[in-house]
């Protein structure tokens, strides 16, 4: 006998939060943010821990005096927006990105050599995965040109492409960088595409000629550094142990004073004992004049002496929150603050990203080693186990497909019950490999931290949406240009 069972409503997956006296939901299936009114809260409250049929839900909502037609319309609106769903959620199957997803950016490791010996370096330190023995140490112009050609050919349909110069210490091969920019400007112009550049450096080799070149060619600069002298010189040292702060300080001042075309960013690595986020931020932003300062905990296996323990992370997060508060105060006044960790998350919340993969690695972005080997990103450069083709022979589609299938958020079991997955998608592939030996493993060691941080940024977003929505619009426009 066939029996029809009336389907019942349940709450969809969302993260609720309050800001500025208003209530909001972050809808996990989409990455959408809604401000909700008291009626919506009443529906969500009634569906807390139970399911109700359409008739029962409307009846309950009308029981407190709401007009039944109004209640009917309310339920319909919430169902259409998928904040509530009928019955169990349909199972989600991992959808592979299109096989012909166009390349957008290459990270050229112009050299794997470095003049510093930072103790925590993922390229040379205890957790390194690179196997550079017997391979070229410096990229040749021929390899670099082949990389540019590959980028243009694989960027089907894109109006603009991007090249990031990376190392080792990038400026140890500045001559190549200069020549590649010349070649790439011509090649992309001939192909009808625009091109932008950026580079990461430890700043030890900056000269005013180099700064002029970078400014003239609109090369965005990110400086890897850790903060004021005592902090910088703790890990960022020369091979003889001497700190690098005294060398880079005058060079940084030249860079920031004379590079006028792009934002100059500092990127700080947080390690055991280097958790004084607020002091570091003040120094880099106020004393040295960086436009943006971003922080990331060091990538390590669990037992390294320099890795951050839970106490360290708690302290970091507390200080992140102080800077986040400041960021909000600036934003309410319509000013930019420069704490990259908030800016990045806010820009993702503005568009409502819902990521299949944590980043563009192996998808729209690839790394190129000095020898021309392709890898998912610069962090896998020269690691034989992660090679994904060669600039001369093209992308190895089978290896790329396997990497992307593993890294898909829906292939990560642990992520399926987490509301922060649209933004996080399981976290860095490289960090996962170092920590768990598998690029497709969720980075479980920072889940709590990601959720707290996302919640903080959502609250900031909520306050701005209520008190200064114009700032969010201008912010989105600026981001679109950068």
């Amino acid at each position: 006998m066939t029996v029809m069972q009336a389907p019942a409503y349940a709450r969809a997956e969302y993260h609720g939060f309050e800001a500025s006296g208003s209530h909001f939901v972050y809808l996990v299936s989409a990455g959408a943010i809604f401000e909700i009114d008291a009626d919506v809260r009443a529906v969500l409250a009634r569906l807390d821990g139970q399911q109700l049929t359409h008739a029962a839900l409307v009846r309950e909502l009308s029981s407190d005096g709401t007009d039944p037609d109004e209640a009917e319309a309310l339920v319909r609106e919430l169902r259409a927006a998928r904040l509530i769903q009928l019955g169990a959620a349909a199972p989600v199957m991992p959808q592979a990105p299109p096989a012909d997803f166009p390349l957008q950016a290459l990270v050229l490791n112009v050299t794997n050599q470095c003049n510093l010996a930072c103790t925590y370096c993922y390229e040379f330190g205890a957790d390194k995965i690179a196997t550079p023995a017997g391979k070229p140490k410096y990229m040749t112009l021929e390899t670099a040109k082949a990389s540019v050609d590959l980028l243009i050919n694989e960027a089907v349909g894109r109006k603009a492409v991007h090249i990031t110069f990376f190392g080792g210490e990038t400026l140890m091969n500045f001559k190549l960088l200069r020549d590649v920019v010349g070649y790439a400007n011509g090649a992309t112009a001939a192909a009808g595409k625009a091109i932008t550049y950026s580079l990461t450096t430890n700043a030890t080799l900056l000269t005013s000629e180099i700064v002029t070149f970078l400014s003239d060619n609109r090369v965005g600069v990110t400086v890897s550094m850790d903060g004021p002298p005592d902090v910088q010189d703790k890990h960022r040292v020369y091979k003889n142990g001497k700190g690098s702060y005294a060398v880079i300080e005058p060079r940084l001042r030249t860079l920031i004073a004379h590079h006028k075309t792009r934002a100059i960013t500092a990127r700080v690595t947080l390690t055991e004992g280097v958790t004084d986020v607020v002091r570091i931020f003040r120094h880099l932003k106020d004393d040295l004049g960086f436009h943006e300062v971003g922080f990331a905990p060091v990538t390590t296996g669990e037992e390294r002496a320099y890795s951050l323990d839970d106490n360290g992370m708690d302290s970091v997060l507390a200080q992140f929150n102080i800077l986040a508060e400041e960021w909000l105060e600036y934003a309410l006044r319509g000013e930019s603050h420069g704490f990259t960790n908030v800016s990045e998350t806010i820009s993702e919340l503005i568009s409502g990203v819902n990521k299949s993969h944590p980043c563009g690695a192996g998808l729209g972005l690839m790394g190129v080693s000095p020898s021309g080997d392709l890898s998912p990103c610069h962090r896998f450069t020269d690691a034989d186990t992660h090679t994904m083709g060669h600039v001369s022979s093209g992308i190895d589609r089978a290896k790329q497909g396997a990497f992307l299938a593993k890294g898909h958020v829906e292939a990560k079991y642990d992520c399926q019950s987490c509301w922060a997955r649209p933004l996080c998608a399981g976290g860095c592939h490289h960090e996962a490999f170092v920590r768990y030996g598998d690029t497709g493993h969720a980075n479980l060691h920072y889940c709590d931290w990601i959720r707290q941080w996302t919640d903080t940024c959502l609250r900031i977003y909520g306050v701005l949406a209520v008190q200064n929505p114009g700032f969010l619009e201008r912010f989105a426009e600026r981001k679109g240009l950068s």
Partner: protein
Amino acid sequence: MKHLRAINKKARAIGEAVAQIEAATPSDMEEDVVALQQQPRPHVPMGCTLSFSPGWEVDAGGGTAGLCQPVERDIYDCYVTCFWPVQVPDHVNYSPDWASNCATATKDWRNLDLVFP
């Protein structure tokens, strides 16, 4: 949308979709017609088939595992209606009399025996 205020791009896109849905569908969603392969599924107890056609029964899951009787027992629909020339039982060549004791399938299906081609 009246109760939800979209405050990011994705939410605004959903708002547009909601407006289209509200403009397009009749109001009474409670009376939704549900197809068998659509979510949510109607409740069908396992062990019952949805149609009577010996040999073609499927259970509520669309398979045969939940049926009371193994479907391999008889293949009446193949015999009577299949266009395929080598159906089993083959009423042209090997089993012309296979269904002769089965005048009405719903009553006489027990008379259909196994076939060993």
